[in-house]
């Protein structure tokens, strides 16, 4: 950042950064600080008095089985979403990276899901999976599967995983494609001359060279599955049935909306913040690596 041609004018510089700083402080730092503060407080039932209780809210939180259930749900859900969206994205990108006719047309279709809001994506799939009238639900029922995501937790989980994967394919596809295109042709040609067949070339040359992209996408997809799927869950299952699709973020949302336990809800928020900080830190290790690469 050094060695720039610098303008004088401190006042102007301050005016220029003011709007962003103001918004950041009011809507980012202040609420985050509030959440942190509240996570150490307990309020009585009428909201009349508060007491500073150190980590009691956290301890209580870690005593509730529902919280562990939400952690389990989150990890299970994220694992499925990350794996399938990456695998499908990579497969499509490898195919689109071949020099074949109509790649532009395929790409145009494949980026559409990115533009669809998570909540709207949910609606599209609810329509297909609605017992009784949905095209796929009926097909499943005809084959003897009693498909009902409203009552069956596993079905609900399958539904939101499908929506989340569908919604995320475009992103992974585009990044994998960009990663593949940045691999020098000559390296692959050298491997071909060295006698490596296409499959072997992919696993011994292309995939290792793609690893920075893959690693980056894993982090981004975990973040996505943790945080950006709230719209999908709220629209498709509302965390049900019986909390079987309630992830950590969704639980914060539900508990906060109920508004009964301010401290506990704040403690949950703080734990989520720590997760984001950790994910961002990991992501930055990657960025640094890429610089040296």
């Amino acid at each position, binding site marked *: 950042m050094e060695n720039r041609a610098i303008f004088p004018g401190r006042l102007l510089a301050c005016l220029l950064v003011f709007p962003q700083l103001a918004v950041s402080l009011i809507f980012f730092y202040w609420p985050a600080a509030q959440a942190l503060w509240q996570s150490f407080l307990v309020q009585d039932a009428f909201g009349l008095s508060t007491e500073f209780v150190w980590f009691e809210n956290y301890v209580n939180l870690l005593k509730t089985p529902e919280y562990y259930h939400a952690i389990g749900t989150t990890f299970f859900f994220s694992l499925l979403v990350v794996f399938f969206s990456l695998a499908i994205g990579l497969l499509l990108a490898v195919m689109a990276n071949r020099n074949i006719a109509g790649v532009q047309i395929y790409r145009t279709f494949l980026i559409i899901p990115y533009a669809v809001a998570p909540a709207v994506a949910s609606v599209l799939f609810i329509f297909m999976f609605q017992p009784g009238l949905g095209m796929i639900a009926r097909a499943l029922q005809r084959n003897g599967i009693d498909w009902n995501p409203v009552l069956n937790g596993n079905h609900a989980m399958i539904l939101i995983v499908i929506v989340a994967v569908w919604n995320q394919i475009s992103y992974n596809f585009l990044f994998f494609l*960009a990663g593949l295109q940045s691999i020098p042709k000559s390296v692959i040609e050298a491997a071909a001359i060295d006698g490596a067949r296409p499959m072997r070339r992919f696993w011994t040359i292309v995939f290792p060279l793609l690893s920075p992209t893959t690693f980056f996408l894993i982090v981004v997809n975990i973040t996505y599955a943790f945080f950006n799927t709230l719209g999908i869950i709220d629209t498709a299952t509302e965390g049900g049935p019986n909390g079987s699709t309630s992830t950590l973020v969704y639980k914060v949302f539900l508990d906060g909306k109920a508004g009964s336990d301010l401290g506990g809800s704040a403690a949950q928020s703080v734990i989520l913040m720590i997760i984001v900080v950790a994910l961002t830190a990991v992501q930055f290790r990657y960025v640094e690596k890429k610089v040296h690469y």
Partner: protein
Amino acid sequence: MVEHRRFGNLLPHLVLIAGVIVVAFPVYLAIIASTHDNSVIANGQMPLYPGGHALETYWNTIMSGTGKTTREPVGSMLLSSLIMAVGIALGKIAISIISAYAIVFFNFPFRMATFWTIFITLMLPVEVRIFPTYKITSDLHMLDSYSGLILPLIASATATLLFRQFFMTVPKELVEASKMDGAGPIRFFFDTLLPLSVTNIAALFVILFIYGWNQYLWPLLITTRDDMQTIVIGIKKIIDVKDALTEWSVAMATAVLAMLPPVAVVVLLQRLFVKGLIETEK
């Protein structure tokens, strides 16, 4: 590569066609459903080709909505979404381009502190500070207002980082030449930097427009009045009936309308979109 594949390029085509079907089929089905009568859909007998009710469904949807669950015509939801999406995109671009300009081209006290303050907001997504943010917005009397919808979302570390990255590639001789040509910081910004940033701004606008249009959690909390509702929130309320009373044709027409602007932007401005997507993540 010169490779003598037995089936030529059959495999990639097959895989990509399968991918396109998976991706496009739900959208196609929504479009088809929006052209059929509710009763046809409700008994599960909907055909895979368009019906004849398109005009009437879309007219009703836009002008009056469902009448049951939301009293709001979808037309006004579209307007809310548009104002929010454009407001967020332009707001983010405006405040981040000027703050990046200050950080890269000015030397002022606490410059690095400012940079880090902006940078750390990356780690505070709205999902983890939902309710305190809601409380502050409500204390500032911004519930049910466009400023409440837009302002809390326009601080963007990613946009600032993107502009900072780009500004740092601007040769310093260009600044010096401007100085020699008698241009001060404000003139340099408008005469040189802004014109050079046009592609970046456009790419960023595409990404941020989609981001803004597809917001869910924040508008859900901040809008209580039906006439402030965005379409992404509205659609949830339309199908928010667990029984079979959902008016599916209206719901699907709403879904199509909700997808149309962002999908159109992505498809028509594909090059800018890809550039914006890849570069904001660097």
